[in-house]
């Protein structure tokens, strides 16, 4: 609980409508996009400018009150879950596009600007902002930076870290950090990379300069069906080995295909085990050459059916099924739990086989949606939260999938972040020395650990308590810690 004295100090910094602490006002902020995790915040502040952000941070620093930053609240790892006794700092009202420089191909935006709004605002110049997380209609750029968000075009166009060039951010002490500049690099350590994906643990961002790209002249998509997921997985590697870097390369398994088709009638073939959507974009001639290669490779890789979208309408229809995959799967069960591991693509058949075995063990169905180009797997575990114990079972199953991803040389999160959700699996992926260095990085910015406490990096003693142990090369990773 926050003291009345602190709340009254907070109120002095902001207009009355920017401070919420009535219960009904607080409820909308009790979770982010991962609704299974809920906690009512003690107080929500919605600053309207940078000076107010700085003032809030200074006050919280002086009073040693924790701060959880939140953007649009679309995150999927409970990274913006309110923390008891903390201020929830919502940056959604900082939503101005401050400048667009079409010739330099940059835009300067406040953190609350929605991802898609940037591309919409610069479309008139023939430009766009490349990272396109599926929540792009709602998610904000500040949150994208905090999570290093990706999307379906990462293999070719990179993640958020590859597409920003400057940040204004504030330390918890209320000190301004200007990181990066208007050229392509900056002196000193790459703090831009360090802050990107730091999940609100190091600083609070108040301005982002994003890089813009020219809109591709043409985009074309090929759909291919396979009677075996392993063949589809091999086809992905073969496309890349043939020298094509697709703009998007997506795979869906049988359950996902059927759910999507039933939902949006995209015209997908239903008698197959896996579906690949391969989109190439760029200049006209490049696209023609790539489509030719992709079709050849898909044929040689044993596709049972190959279709090339022959119009923009059909291209969008092919994508409609994939884009609706999550809500479509959502119709199959009362709840689903979306995982976010990344694996080396070559390990796909092995990983899918193991997931299907686990699915049988847990008695929970799984639909697999896969950013195949960059190895980012989104298994959707179907469950019913109203059945006692099913959520815990789904979470346990999900944890097993993530541990499997680490085992094959991958990672527990490709784009959703660790947040609170995957904090246990961090103990599987990282050993004590690395976790210690993560805490060191945190301490370099925020020695009192006031920013988003308890998220992203687990305390070492918690790893031992959870029994989630990093085993690498047969060596136990926390040998110095007591075990119970």
């Amino acid at each position: 609980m926050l003291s009345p004295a602190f709340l009254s100090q907070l109120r002095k910094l902001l207009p009355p409508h920017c401070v919420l602490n009535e219960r009904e006002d607080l409820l909308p902020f009790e979770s982010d996009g991962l609704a299974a995790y809920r906690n009512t915040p003690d107080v929500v502040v919605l600053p309207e400018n940078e000076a107010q952000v700085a003032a809030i941070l200074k006050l919280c620093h002086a009073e040693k009150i924790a701060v959880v930053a939140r953007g649009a609240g679309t995150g999927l790892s409970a990274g913006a879950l309110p923390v008891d006794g903390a201020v929830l700092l919502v940056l959604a009202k900082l939503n101005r596009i401050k400048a667009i420089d079409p010739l330099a191909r940059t835009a300067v935006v406040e953190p609350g600007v929605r991802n898609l709004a940037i591309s919409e605002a610069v479309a008139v110049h023939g430009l766009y902002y490349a990272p396109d997380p599926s929540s792009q209609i709602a998610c904000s750029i500040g949150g994208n930076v905090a999570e290093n968000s990706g999307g379906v075009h990462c293999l070719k166009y990179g993640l958020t870290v590859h597409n920003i060039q400057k940040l204004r951010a504030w330390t918890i002490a209320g000190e301004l950090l200007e990181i990066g500049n208007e050229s392509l690099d900056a002196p000193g350590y790459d703090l831009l990379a360090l802050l990107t994906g730091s999940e609100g643990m190091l600083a609070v961002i108040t301005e982002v300069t994003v890089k813009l790209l020219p809109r591709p002249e043409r985009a074309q998509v090929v759909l291919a069906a396979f009677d075996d997921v392993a063949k589809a997985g091999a086809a992905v590697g073969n496309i890349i080995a043939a020298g094509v870097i697709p703009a998007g390369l997506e795979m869906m398994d049988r359950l996902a295909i059927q759910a999507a088709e039933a939902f949006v009638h995209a015209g997908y073939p239903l008698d197959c085990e896996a579906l690949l959507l391969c989109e190439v974009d760029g200049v006209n001639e490049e696209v023609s050459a790539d489509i030719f290669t992709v079709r050849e490779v898909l044929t040689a890789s044993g596709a049972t059916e190959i279709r090339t979208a022959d119009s923009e309408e059909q291209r969008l229809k092919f994508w409609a099924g994939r884009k609706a995959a999550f809500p479509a799967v959502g119709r199959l069960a009362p709840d689903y739990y979306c995982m976010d591991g990344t694996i080396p693509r070559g390990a796909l058949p092995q990983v899918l086989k193991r997931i299907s075995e686990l699915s049988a063990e847990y008695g929970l169905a799984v639909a697999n949606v896969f950013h195949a180009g960059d190895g980012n797997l989104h298994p959707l575990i179907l469950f019913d939260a109203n059945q006692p114990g099913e959520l815990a079972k789904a979470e346990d199953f999900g944890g097993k999938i993530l541990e499997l991803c680490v085992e094959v040389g991958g990672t527990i999160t490709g784009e959703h972040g660790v947040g609170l959700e995957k904090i246990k699996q961090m103990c599987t992926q990282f050993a004590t020395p690395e976790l210690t260095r993560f805490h060191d990085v945190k301490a370099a910015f925020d020695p009192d650990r006031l920013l988003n406490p308890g998220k992203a990096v687990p305390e070492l003693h918690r790893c031992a308590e959870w029994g989630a142990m990093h085993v690498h090369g047969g060596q136990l990773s926390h040998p110095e810690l007591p075990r119970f």
Partner: protein
Amino acid sequence: MLDAYIERIRAAHANGSPLIIHGGGSKSFYGGADEGEVLSSRKFTGIVDYQPKELVLTARAGTPLAEIEAQLAEQNQMLAFEPPHFGGGATLGGSIAAGLSGPRRPYAGAARDFVLGVRMIDGTGQPLRFGGQVIKNVAGYDVSRLMVGALGTLGFLTEVSLKVLPKPAAEATLQFEFDEATAIRTMNQWAGQPLPLSATSWHAGLLSVRLSGAETAVRAAQARLGGEVLKDADAFWLRLRDQATPFFDKRPLWRLAVRPTMGPLKLGDAQWIEWGGAVRWLASDLPAAALREAARSCGGHATLFRGNAPIDGAFTPLAPALLTLHRNLKQRFDPKGIFNHGRLVPDF
């Protein structure tokens, strides 16, 4: 071998004795002068893993770039950031520690954009592993990228995993007789259009533009842009990448990184423009403060890239808040300050 490095660094940490990290020595001119015993990665070589279908290569720090590039070329792949070799011997570790990129950088990305993971030994002798071998990975802070351009001040890199890309099927370089202002404007205008650009350069009244992609795409762009086709273009870009033309022999040689659209800087005629206008190489005797101020007012920073004598403070000094963070990070990764003292920041 790794154990020997760990031992050596532990001992240096215990005694507080400074070490200078060396790879191939091709970039020993770069950054501030440092003092200490040489810790060479040169013998720690070898490609550990290369999966062309995964677009990932992992190699030990001392592996020569030339060896890596030859291996990639066999599979028709490349390091898309075109790291400079500077006369030969450049190693993977040195390239990543220096964080320098070549002509393709503005169109394909920088060294830091292609780093997926590192293994390193910190200043206490603790071996560490960050990132991995997959393209999308947001677990934990991005310490791998923090090492890129840190000039070895945070740790001794032992192994690096990189994303690699297919080589373009075709390339062509076009040249145009343009004055400086026209060249800068043109580079930026073309970069905002769907054109297969992969490098740009302007020097002595000549704009050079490289196109890369499918044969048909390169030919179509060529027809659209006009200009004269440069013969022996590969050699031209290699010389620029490695600074192997007489222009780059001048001292002191400054690198001004600026907003790419910035018009002519009017800081003298001895100038070579790269990276779509974002980098201006300058042979100039002007005082450091004047050049740094000029770069700052153009949205960037100035580096004394090659000097006549050992350099004290090659890089633009950091703002106080950033300097504090640098000091804090250094303190955590190398508490006794044994690695490359003064190379990146004069004080540590």
